[in-house]
């Protein structure tokens, strides 16, 4: 139940995120209502009211992300790793295994723990 929203710091807010709960100013007045979709202007305004973090609804994907999306995310995570840099082979190998795990369907067999 605590996982339906995430307290997200201002620096990590993006337009299009949806508020899980109302955001109040220091006097208890509603700045933004629950369910509001954040706009660029709304984020700036939160900053002016010195709001540190707001409860953002966790995105519930309508469908599982496609392979291209997953690959893009993995590329983002490994953005400091250069595939051509053989001196950094260990990071490169981890990257390849994560790709196999997430995209290429090389699922590990279930093991009893």
């Amino acid at each position, binding site marked *: 139940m*605590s996982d339906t929203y995430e307290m997200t710091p201002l620096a990590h807010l993006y337009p299009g995120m949806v508020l899980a709960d109302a955001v109040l100013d220091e006097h208890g007045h509603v700045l933004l209502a629950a369910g509001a979709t954040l706009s660029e202007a709304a984020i700036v305004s939160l900053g002016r009211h010195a709001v540190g973090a707001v409860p953002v609804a966790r995105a519930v994907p309508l469908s599982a992300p496609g392979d291209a999306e997953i690959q893009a995310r993995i590329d983002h*995570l490994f953005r400091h790793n250069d595939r051509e840099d053989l001196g*950094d082979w*260990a*990071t490169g190998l*981890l*990257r390849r295994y994560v790709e196999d*795990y997430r995209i290429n369907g090389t699922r*590990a067999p279930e*093991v009893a723990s």
Partner: protein
Amino acid sequence: MSDAIHPLTREELMAGVDDLPSLPAVVMELLGSIEEEDLDIAVLSKKVASDPALMAKTLRLANSSAYGLQVKATTIQQATTFLGFEAMRKLIIAAALTGCFPAGRCPGFNDRAFWRHSIATAACARVLARRLRFNPDYAFTAGLLHGIGRLVLVSRFPERYQAVLSLRDKRDCELMDAERALLGLDHVEAGVALAEYWNFSDTMRQAIAYHRTPELPSAGFLATIVHVASAVVHALDLAGNPDELVPRVSAVAWTALGMSEEAWLQVFHETELQVDEMTAILVA
């Protein structure tokens, strides 16, 4: 913010550590005595039971699916009989630590993501240790504690740390590099200072000190496990950070674990299975 550009002195860091809330006495005792195996279970149970919140959290962890108990434990003593002393020590430490630092003091610092990363690293380190026939309970605790110095910096120097976070965003560098650039020291040093202040065992202190430099001869195998576990957790994107970044993996550490791809994929899977449930219990 005006003092954000001045480096932190060692004295300021130590004063910051001094001001931290103290851990429950029983946890201090458990952290300091991690190599001792002859602590009395009855005494331990009594001490934990004197702190109802700690007891409840510890029991929820012990009864979580990661431990697969057939019968639910209702007392610390019972859980210790089922799981063993080492496992219980680890769970009590985890339950106490996650409630010890105030959240939300430093805007821009995502406390929840921090704990998700720490808990996932603990889970992954435990999975790795079991495979490599290393003590899984040490590995779990070391994984949980490896980044604890960051909380010292965030909770004692929130304005300066906000500047660190901005610099990280601006340069898209590792947080550690931004820490060094602005504070003159990093979370590893802060973690070692805390380990001394809270009287962690030498084993834990060493793992905290060397988890970013596992190739150094004095680092030890626990630092190697934690180094790789942390990288795996970054790579599996388990913390919930939009700007997650996988740090460079030490080739020495990777080689030392000597695992096949098949084994790695199983480790990924087992780690993912445990993270959500543990996080829900520890940072509710």
